[in-house]
């Protein structure tokens, strides 16, 4: 097995990979940008070195060489789906922990992937084969497909550069926004157009392949709950598939057909849209570890990051398709520094108080700690709270229990919003679709008044607090109460 591996990422996923490396007795090398000097992944890694950016291939490879790393784990986002990076690793004699540069290239472009899917008899959503390079072409393509249509960045992922367009009048503005967003996110403004499937569910299949031609699927994840086209709650199994068990094998086989076509190895995820009747359409392939991989781990009992490392090391997948067992139900909430009351607007800043949930059936993959300042520069994801229980209702109740214990003070978060969602009748019935969150805001009831009891409790605590803080802070501004001042002296540099 590798003796040393560099983790080319940050936040909770870098922490998760560092943990896996330690469990396999592999020395971990973290990289960090200036704002991340004191980040959790740097604290937990064996070695750490500064890079000017998580996107700078040269300086990452330089660190890898300097530290004698044998392989590089890209995590998700950043360079994880960059074929050039995969190729550069190989060129530098470094193992890229993921699929081949060729697979990334062939599956990375959505248009190319669509064509391949069609060729492999995997149903796709009607849409344009080539990117809409100019407004005229876009208008024409949109007319052919018929409104409403969806604009998507060709190189994209995570909903960046995505726009729904209901009428031609909106097309020009939407194209402009989508392209500029795509340009910023992926350095490619290419956008293409596809038909909107109404009330679709987002269901994806986890696949894994090795260098010896073994390809297995690990079942599905349903990720229909999305805001800004980004997933916020994922689960395994999918309520839809739990009701139609045959779909798992069907979709799994479809996913494996695409993987086989490119001789895929390591982890990958094939995303589908599914409609009410259980018809499903190929969406795209994510050629990397997925944010929501833990729900699959809790249900199958497999460790996907361990698996990635063994496979990259040339080992065979130690089980066959028939050995994969799905036990119970797992659900994940993506805890982010954002404000659901302001269109999920990001809310970076300092975490002045943090209490994390624990106990039976709880897994917390977090990238933060008390006193950590969530930087403005990156995605607002703070942690992933995952619960397991024998059934879906058990997982939901356990999630509510964990959310009750979870407290983050200093930045806005979506914790309270998750509590609401998990109590929503439609959510509990598993009637999900990708518009669920938007629709929810439509039927959302305003929270009632706190009531006199809570006001009295608040008053008592406020009185106790000021009685308590006065001695130390009489001569200071309120902001600089004892524990905040410690926090402020944060990094000594």
């Amino acid at each position, binding site marked *: 097995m590798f003796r040393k591996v560099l983790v080319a990422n940050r936040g909770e996923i870098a922490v998760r990979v560092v943990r896996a490396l330690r469990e396999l007795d592999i020395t971990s090398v973290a990289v960090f940008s200036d704002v991340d000097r004191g980040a959790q992944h740097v604290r937990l890694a064996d070695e750490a070195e500064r890079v000017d950016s998580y996107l700078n291939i040269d300086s990452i490879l330089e660190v890898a060489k300097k530290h004698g790393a044998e392989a590089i784990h890209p995590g998700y986002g950043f360079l994880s789906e960059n074929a050039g990076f995969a190729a550069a690793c190989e060129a530098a004699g470094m193992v890229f922990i993921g699929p081949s540069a060729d697979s990334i290239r062939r599956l990375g472009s959505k248009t190319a992937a669509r064509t391949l899917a069609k060729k492999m008899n995997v149903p796709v959503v009607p849409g344009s084969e080539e990117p809409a390079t100019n407004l005229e072409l876009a208008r024409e393509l949109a007319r052919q497909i018929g409104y409403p249509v969806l604009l998507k960045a060709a190189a994209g992922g995570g909903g960046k550069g995505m726009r729904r367009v209901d009428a031609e009048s909106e097309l020009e503005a939407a194209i402009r926004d989508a392209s500029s967003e795509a340009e910023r996110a992926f350095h490619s403004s290419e956008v293409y157009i596809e038909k909107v499937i109404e009330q679709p569910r987002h269901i994806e299949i986890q696949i894994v392949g090795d260098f010896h031609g073994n390809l297995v699927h690990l079942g599905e994840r349903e990720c229909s709950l999305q805001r800004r086209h980004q997933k916020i709650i994922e689960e395994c199994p999918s309520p839809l598939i739990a009701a139609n068990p045959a779909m798992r094998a069907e979709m799994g086989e479809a996913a494996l057909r695409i993987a086989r076509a490119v001789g895929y190895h390591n982890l990958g995820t094939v995303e589908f849209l599914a409609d009410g009747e259980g018809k499903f359409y190929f969406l795209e392939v994510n050629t990397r570890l997925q944010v929501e991989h833990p729900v699959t781990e809790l249900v199958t009992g497999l460790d996907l990051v361990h698996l990635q490392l063994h496979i990259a090391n040339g080992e065979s997948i130690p089980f066959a398709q028939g050995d994969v067992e799905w036990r119970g139900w797992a659900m994940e909430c993506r805890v982010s520094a954002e404000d659901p009351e302001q*269109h999920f*607007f*990001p809310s970076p800043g300092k975490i002045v108080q943090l209490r994390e949930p624990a106990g039976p059936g709880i897994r917390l993959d977090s990238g933060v700690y008390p006193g950590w300042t969530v930087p403005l520069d990156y*995605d607002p994801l703070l942690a992933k709270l995952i619960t397991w229980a024998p059934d879906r209702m058990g997982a939901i109740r356990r999630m509510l229990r964990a959310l009750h214990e979870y407290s983050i003070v*200093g930045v806005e978060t979506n914790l309270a919003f998750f509590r609401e969602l998990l109590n929503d009748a439609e959510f509990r019935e598993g009637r999900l679709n990708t518009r669920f969150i938007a629709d929810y805001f439509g039927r959302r009831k305003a929270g009632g008044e706190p009531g006199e009891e*809570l006001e009295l409790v608040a008053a008592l*605590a*406020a*009185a106790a607090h000021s009685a308590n803080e006065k001695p130390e802070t009489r001569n200071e501004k309120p902001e600089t109460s004892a524990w905040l001042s410690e926090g402020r002296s944060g990094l000594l540099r």
Partner: protein
Amino acid sequence: MKLQILVNGRLVPVDAEDVQRVAQVEPGVYSVLLGGRSFEVRAVAARDGLRLELSGRRFTAEVRDPRDRAQKSAAALGTGRQNIAAPMPGKVVRVLVGEGDVVEVGQGLVVVEAMKMQNEMKALRGGNVVEVRVRDGDTVSAGDVLVVLG
């Protein structure tokens, strides 16, 4: 002896003895037992008094105390009703209106990008644009006024 606490703008009288029974379990974290029920309150000092979290709800509180009053009124001045401010630091991607324009409720005014997401600042109510304080490419901090509506 009774203390007067301002909670969400409402005056709540409390007994000093009850305050004594509140247990500080961690810095800024208080365990309150009231009528046999157990509550945990998290308190953070803010510009305008205290911000409290309790049973997943937010409260603002202020202990009636001459020293605090000055600060508060000072803070109060900061919040003009007509101003469209940036809720967080970011970069102005595109200004959608010009001074003198008439805008309707919900109309987009400025697009700000932060944490890799574009966010359109919308008009909270109809009116005309008195002032535009930013232009494309500007970097803004939280609270910076972007546009003033008359």
